[in-house]
């Protein structure tokens, strides 16, 4: 087994944005193409990111909205390709667990288990063996045979978490999901996360909840405007982040007071 499971070396990612605010009409595009009114600018979403996650470690990623956390996760999932630099992932990657998309809403929870399993390359028979364990963990009970569209957000996340963690991936990517569900389910997730760490599963957890990160992560990365602002031990980075947030709030308060 390799020592590092996820390796980012000077990873940068540029988005090409249309200056016209996104042309979605073919007719319009042709007209602009002909009249040469078509220009783009690039936006740097990630800038020179370097880090390693040893296999079995859990990395917490923090930062304000739009700092590039989810974009980084998408590179780690192999969905986006870096514009510069090299990203290496060793092992089988589970789909990103996040709120919302990824399920087929017309199909039942049970059918979605098999469908999600197929996404991970699991055969029908393979999933049949695990399906009861997944249903048990998700606590969906009889709802498992109802279409997903009837589910609440919490139920969907529970199911996604149960599937991804039952199919034995070696890399797990979580985007802001451990804060969903009641206290008891959160505790259950935390237990399973620890179980994962014991089994050597590498995890990246994006979260706004510092307490969740402090509870389960072994190291922490703070992204700010696409750059690494700080990385290292969880305690160091989170305390630095807390201080920064407070100073920002302080500034804000001063501006508010002045105006």
């Amino acid at each position, binding site marked *: 087994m390799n020592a590092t499971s996820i390796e980012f070396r000077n990873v940068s990612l540029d*988005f*090409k944005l249309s200056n016209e605010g996104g*042309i*979605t*009409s*073919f*007719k319009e*595009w042709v007209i602009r193409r002909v009249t040469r009114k078509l220009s783009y600018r690039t936006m740097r979403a990630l800038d020179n990111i370097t880090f390693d996650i040893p296999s079995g470690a859990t990395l917490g990623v923090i930062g304000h909205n739009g700092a590039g956390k989810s974009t980084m996760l*998408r*590179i780690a*999932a*192999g*969905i*986006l*390709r*870096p*514009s*510069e*630099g*090299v*990203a*290496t*992932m*060793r*092992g*089988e*990657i*589970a*789909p*990103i667990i*996040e709120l*919302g*998309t*990824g399920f*087929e809403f*017309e*199909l039942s929870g049970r*059918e979605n288990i*098999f*469908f999600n*399993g*197929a*996404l*991970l*390359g*699991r*055969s*029908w028979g393979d999933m049949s063996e695990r399906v009861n364990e997944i249903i048990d963990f998700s606590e969906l009970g009889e709802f498992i045979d109802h279409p997903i569209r009837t589910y609440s957000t919490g139920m969907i996340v529970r199911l996604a978490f149960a599937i991804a963690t039952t199919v*034995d*991936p*070696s890399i797990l990517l979580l985007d802001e999901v451990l804060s969903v569900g009641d206290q008891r389910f959160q505790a259950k997730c935390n237990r399973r996360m620890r179980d994962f760490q014991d089994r050597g599963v590498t995890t990246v957890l994006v979260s706004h909840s510092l307490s969740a990160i402090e509870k389960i992560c072994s190291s922490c990365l703070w992204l700010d405007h696409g750059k690494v602002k700080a990385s290292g031990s969880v305690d160091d980075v989170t305390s630095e982040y807390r201080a920064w947030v407070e100073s920002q709030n302080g500034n804000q308060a001063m501006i508010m007071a002045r105006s």
Partner: protein
Amino acid sequence: MIESSSTVLVNAAEHRVGTLEELRDLARHSHLLASLVKRDLTVRYKRSVIGFFWTMLNPLLLMIILTVVFSALFRFEGIEPYAVYFLSEYLVFGFFSQTTVTSMTSLSWNGGLMKKVRVPKSIFAISTTISGLVNLCLAYIPLFVIMMVLDAPIRPAVFFLPVAFLIIGVFTLGVSFFLSALAVYFEDVSHMYQVATIGLMYMTPIIYPISIIPYKYLWLVRGNPLTHLFKLARDPIYLGQLPAGHVIQASVISAVVALVLGWLVFHRLSRNFYHHL
């Protein structure tokens, strides 16, 4: 347990994913392909009890309407039975237009999925085409029933149909690749295409015999690849004989050209899909 796999993603500009690599990726995702087809068919047939019968009923109702219109109002000389002439090609046209339209929407519908896990993007057009072919085969069952009712002979040439469907399927897949890639970028492509399919239908001798086309427009119908392709499905049923060699040849060439061009466009455009989904 899990087979160990490693993903290395380097600089997008230096490293272009080749066709071979994408094909290998598709092979690895065969379970997903099966699952997508299963999903398409489940959503279509399982959710409504009449879903399955509707597919059967649709051509039957259509036949009644068209038989009335074209046997009683407009008459084409020498086409007997008209229902068999029309349906043997119209069902294939239905497959072609439905599959291409669905591929366009399926790529955007599965945008959420593509943002969550790495899947070969071409898998959606492929699965849509495969489930379309399954539906097509089912749609021919009522046609055979109609033929028996009308006392039209079913000849051994019908065993050519699987080959015909395969060639038509390859062509449809190529067109689906092209259109679905374009539809990711531009919303209005699918609206324009829906109008275009109506034009396409009248440019193909589906409801009328090719003999009624005036000489100066003949090149338009003859040059339309659908004319040859759909003949592959009509001849074994309506004429009860294998399609002529030159028809098969033209069809195979059209199918291969469509697949290669469609794939190249799709492959080129798919690199930036993420930002448009």
